[in-house]
């Protein structure tokens, strides 16, 4: 009698195992649906095309902006610079990117010198209209050109204002909304690195 019970119990083990692995598989499927891998293929100041793939193994901290934006763009770049300094040796595992949503004008004035004034690690990318649009769509973010006489050159850009974090395999991980203090971003990154 005892033996029968024991056998019966043992027979439930594979069932439980199968059950839990199905649940894990489902959770995994769910994660794969939720996660996505933004792509971009954009030139840096030297004209070299940079893609998401070349940064595999690093976390990417991505901002969409333009350098004729004297308010929230420099404020956010300053936060990024602070994060990179506070990460110390861990900073090697993080690559900050500034993707221009005003690429023609930003290519003209140049991004490297401007971004280096914040932190030497920040890489600026400015493509053509099509490549910029593709990158923006891939990140599921937003930008638009608005004609406005009260702006330099008669137009300005509206753009997503968050910082976006991609993981070492290129997965979209999260965003830090505008105004997230550098300390909070640093603490979150340190937990992930």
């Amino acid at each position, binding site marked *: 009698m005892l033996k029968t019970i024991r056998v019966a119990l043992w027979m439930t083990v594979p069932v439980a195992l199968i059950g839990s692995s199905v649940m894990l598989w489902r959770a995994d499927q769910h994660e794969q649906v939720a996660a996505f891998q933004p792509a971009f293929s954009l030139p840096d100041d030297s004209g070299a095309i940079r893609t998401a793939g070349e940064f595999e193994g690093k976390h990417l901290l991505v901002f969409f902006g333009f*350098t*004729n*934006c*004297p*308010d*929230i763009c*420099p*404020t956010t*770049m*300053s*936060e990024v*610079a*602070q994060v990179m300094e506070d990460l110390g040796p861990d900073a090697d595992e993080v690559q900050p990117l500034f993707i221009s949503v005003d690429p023609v004008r930003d290519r*003209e*004035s140049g991004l490297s*010198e*401007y971004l280096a*004034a*914040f932190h030497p690690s920040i890489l600026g990318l400015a493509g053509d209209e099509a490549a910029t649009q593709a990158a923006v769509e891939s990140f599921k973010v*937003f930008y638009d050109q*608005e004609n*406005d006489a*009260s*702006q*330099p050159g008669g137009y*300005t*850009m*509206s*753009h*997503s*204002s*968050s910082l976006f974090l991609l993981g070492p395999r290129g997965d979209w991980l999260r*965003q830090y*909304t*505008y*105004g997230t203090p550098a300390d909070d971003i640093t603490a979150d990154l340190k937990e992930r690195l």
Partner: protein
Amino acid sequence: MLKLIAATLGMAAVLPAMAHAECAEVSQGDLSISAAWSRATIGTARPAVFYVTIQNNGSTEDRLIGIETPVAGMPMLHETVLSDGVASMPHADQISIAAGETVSLAPGSYHGMLMDLNEALTEGESFPMTLQFQNAGTLTIDTDVVSIREREAPCAPAP
């Protein structure tokens, strides 16, 4: 005696901080303006920014209606607007300073947008900015140019 030493030490500790926090302040009528600052620029191709704190000590509303400075050919008032995570910076016709209120032009809010720069703005230097108000008239304040990386006023407005 001990008290005196403590007071002296306290003073010594406070003085450098105060020196750092010293802010130019200009008053006229009911208005006081202070903590005027701007970020250094790289060349003159990109617009600079202007931030300031305005205090209305009176009992009637006043409005900032324009700015003027020798460093920029096209200075304007803008407001950064964040809506559903998207930022834009429309022109602000005027900025209301309600009676008894303090309004700051600050990152993520109102700013002076200094377009057509006549010269690059260098950290450590300063430039005059004239603010035009509907009631109080014009006030001119010296604006400190600080690091391009600065995120807040480098000096506190007078208490």
